């Protein structure tokens, strides 16, 4: 490991970002002693660390995904903790329930690591399934850049949900069961909270049931959405909207729910913004809905932090760095990541990506269902 080039509070290492003053890693991708984890998606949380710290509302989903008996501590948003020579606090990132930005203070210097984040829309209803993003003033801001190109500009989520509702209604008229493929943690619950439950029955894949409970426990009201089990199939066929992780597509589990005229499938993701990405998936529809900031959101968030130095990671690193340097006159630099995710979506199978592909634990067909 090369020595840290300067007095940076946080440096990239082969294991991920490391804070020497606090002797902990942030979102390491290999097992380490002390990990502070922004959220439980598999490209941010790895199994096998000795101890984890995450936000209080993020504990449950993280526990679901780490090894049994993992030592996980929760820290409420806004409270600070002394770790080594640093003060650490967590602040909402607006990505999914409990997703945190990590603020580290050491000798008057403040570094904030964004993790994945979603800024609130300017003039539309926010995502009510997670704590809204709060900008945190800092000297150094390390930002993600999953959708760091100006072709990514989100429309209000109400438009996407109107489209999903209309498609679901049409599927019912056609006698097709509606399948929405969405990432099990976060996106699935956001879809549930946004669709119109008056249209028909809603059910979810086994991988989503437990996560829904965590959301309910955190006080986020979701419409009734039972486990899509064989017993419910007669009621669901041709009428229901069923939410499942993308890996469930094409599995025998789907067949139980096929309507009189088949099924219609959709993927819900920011990547659906681009026609080519939509079309090369074997799906009927692609709906644009992301839990990441769009281009304008990234730039807004970066300005709000007031940071003079900005590290860019996870996504379209080079374009965002160049833009910040040339247009915003900010000292921007790339932060290497194992998830070279120029296209997060296309990571190799052992590197599941948060936005589209499910974590490995989602990838088996519903375990409670006989095949």
């Amino acid at each position, binding site marked *: 490991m090369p020595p840290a080039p300067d007095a940076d509070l946080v440096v990239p290492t082969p294991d991920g970002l490391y804070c020497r003053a606090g002797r902990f890693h942030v979102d390491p991708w290999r097992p380490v002693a002390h990990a502070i984890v922004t959220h439980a998606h598999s490209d941010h949380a790895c199994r096998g660390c000795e101890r984890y710290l995450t936000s209080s509302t993020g504990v449950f989903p993280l526990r679901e995904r780490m090894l049994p008996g993992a030592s996980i501590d929760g820290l409420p948003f806004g409270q600070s903790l002394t770790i080594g020579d640093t003060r650490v606090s967590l602040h909402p990132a607006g990505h999914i329930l409990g997703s945190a930005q990590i603020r580290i203070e050491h000798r008057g210097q403040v570094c904030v690591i964004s993790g994945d984040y979603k800024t609130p829309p300017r003039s539309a209803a926010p995502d009510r399934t997670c704590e809204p993003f709060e900008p945190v003033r800092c000297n150094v801001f390390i930002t993600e850049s999953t959708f760091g*190109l*100006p*072709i990514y*500009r989100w429309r209000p989520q109400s438009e996407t949900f109107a489209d999903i509702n209309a498609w679901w209604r049409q599927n019912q008229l056609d006698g097709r069961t509606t399948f929405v493929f969405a990432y099990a943690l976060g996106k699935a619950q956001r879809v549930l909270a946004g669709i119109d439950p008056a249209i028909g029955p809603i059910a979810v894949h086994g991988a989503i049931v437990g996560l829904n409970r965590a959301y309910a426990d955190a006080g986020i009201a979701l419409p009734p959405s039972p486990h899509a089990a064989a017993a419910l199939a007669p009621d669901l066929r041709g009428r229901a909207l069923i939410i499942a992780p993308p890996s469930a597509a094409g599995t025998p589990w789907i067949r139980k729910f096929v309507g009189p005229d088949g099924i219609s499938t959709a993927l819900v993701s920011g990547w659906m*913004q*681009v*026609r*080519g*990405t939509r*079309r*090369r998936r*074997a799906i*009927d*529809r692609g709906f644009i809905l992301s839990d990441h900031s769009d281009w304008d959101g990234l730039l807004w968030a970066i300005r709000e932090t007031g940071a003079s130095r900005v590290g860019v990671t996870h996504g*379209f690193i*080079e*374009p965002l760095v*160049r*833009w910040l340097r*040339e*247009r915003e006159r900010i000292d921007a630099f790339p932060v290497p990541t194992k998830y*070279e995710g*120029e*296209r997060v*979506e*296309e*990571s*190799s*199978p052992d590197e599941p990506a948060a936005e589209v592909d499910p974590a490995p634990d989602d990838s088996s067909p519903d375990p409670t269902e006989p095949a």
Partner: protein
Amino acid sequence: MLPFTRLFLDLDQSNRTSEKVAAIEQYFRHASPADAAHALYFLSGNRFKRVLKTKVMVQTALLITKTPEWLLDECYEAVGDLSETVALLLPGGETPTDTPLHTIVDRWIRPLLHAEDAAASDQLALAWSKLGRDQRFVFNKLLRGNFRVGVNRRLVQRALAAVADIDPAVMAHRLSGKVEPTEAAYLRIMSGGTSEDDFSRPYPFCLANQLNDPPQSLGDIADWQIEYKWDGIRAQILRRAAPHPDGRVTTHLWSRGDELITDQFPELALAAASLPPGTVLDGEVLAWRHTSPGAPDGRALSFNALQTRLNRKNVQPSLFDADGIVFIAFDILEHEARDIRDQPLSARRLVLEQLHRRHLASAEVIKLAPILTPRSWPDAGALRTTARTDRNAEGLMLKHRQSAYHVGRGVIRARESASADNPSPPKSAGGWWKWKIDPFSVDAVLIYAQPGSGKRAGLFTDYTFGIWDGEALTPFAKAYSGLDNDEIKRVDALIRVNTTGRMGPVRVVRPALVFEIGFETIRASPRHRSGIAVRFPRILRWREDKKPADADTLDSVRALLARHTD
């Protein structure tokens, strides 16, 4: 333009044939004839001769969006389509326009395509400001001449046939040849009213399916007419009288791509003049080397020899002195002005032979396709194997003797196939099969990769392969297809980790991945760095079992070239 954009989105979103046909039908039922004519023109894959320069579209977009050019390039790399990239970058677009499609084409698109750059840019900016987001994408595609949507001709035929309430085969005939984007042309198509140029329309071509199963699966070889599969231009010769009162008898030569190619092959038009009016022949245009000038025998040349002809407007006679052009006739679709496509092939063949004897016996340029008579499938297999070396053919055509001349690839009931004495015809009855020679193949190493476009945007799917020239790999062929989706993803991931350099969007890849590359023909080419050009290169297999050192060399490929030169 609202309904047309809606139609585009519906077609783009759907994977179901029935839905696509329904969407097209829906559109044409409600569109005005002027709009419908344009929609049909675009859906049939036509485009305007002029296209908007890339430069004008890019510069206008940069100006409006205040985006630096490098950032637009990055966006383009992620999207893989300039029209879409620009549509995604443009601000606003919340309110689509309800200006009809034909007005947009006549008032916006055509003037723009004929304007000077500066004026075109102003008009473009104005148009974008009036269009909705999705409309801008469609508009850009039309301007750029690359509007494509996932429907084939047959779907359009089916939908229009339903709207006009006629048989799809009739509609297919009305739609063959060039369709002009005019209200009058559209009304003629829908009403079937005779037109000045109806007599010049070819029939929809009967296409063959690829034979993948052993030929024994086709049953008794005696039921099959076997011919060479020629490597030329599939075409129909039409010899018909113009409608009354003109009455003039003219010749038209149509390629399968619905291009009128009469002028490129004047010697064929000349020879066809001896055909009686009301005759339509199907066959293959080939470059031919006569054993001596004017000799009746000779040998087909490879497709490359034909290519020089296709792009010429005025063909000079000197071009066809030594090597000539011939038309190998293998079917007759119209005889004595009667459509005989639903007669069995065996009957049509008799008519064809008789016609040839009477009218073409002295015309060396229009030849009768020889019928091969192997006794057994293994004998046929032997003919296929040597088809290339013996005849410069691509393999064999197997046509059921009872087959009707069906439309496209569809299997259509021949009249006899369901008769009482033949209650269970083979599943292939009525079908035509192409039984091609295995392609040439070479093992080559992936050396460059570029993101694909369209469906493959953002994925590395455009590959360049190299073969060994001493210690170095020299580029040999580019290929875009042949891998399944899983393989594409794995190769994409491997390209990312093996990248050693970049040249614009192109990644230089460490030699690690070996592929078996198939191609149809091989020829010397001074324009290619390897000195060799191949036709239809594609990936046959990913040779994960081979190391880069096992790949072919320039010398071994040169040896292949030497064995297969005309």
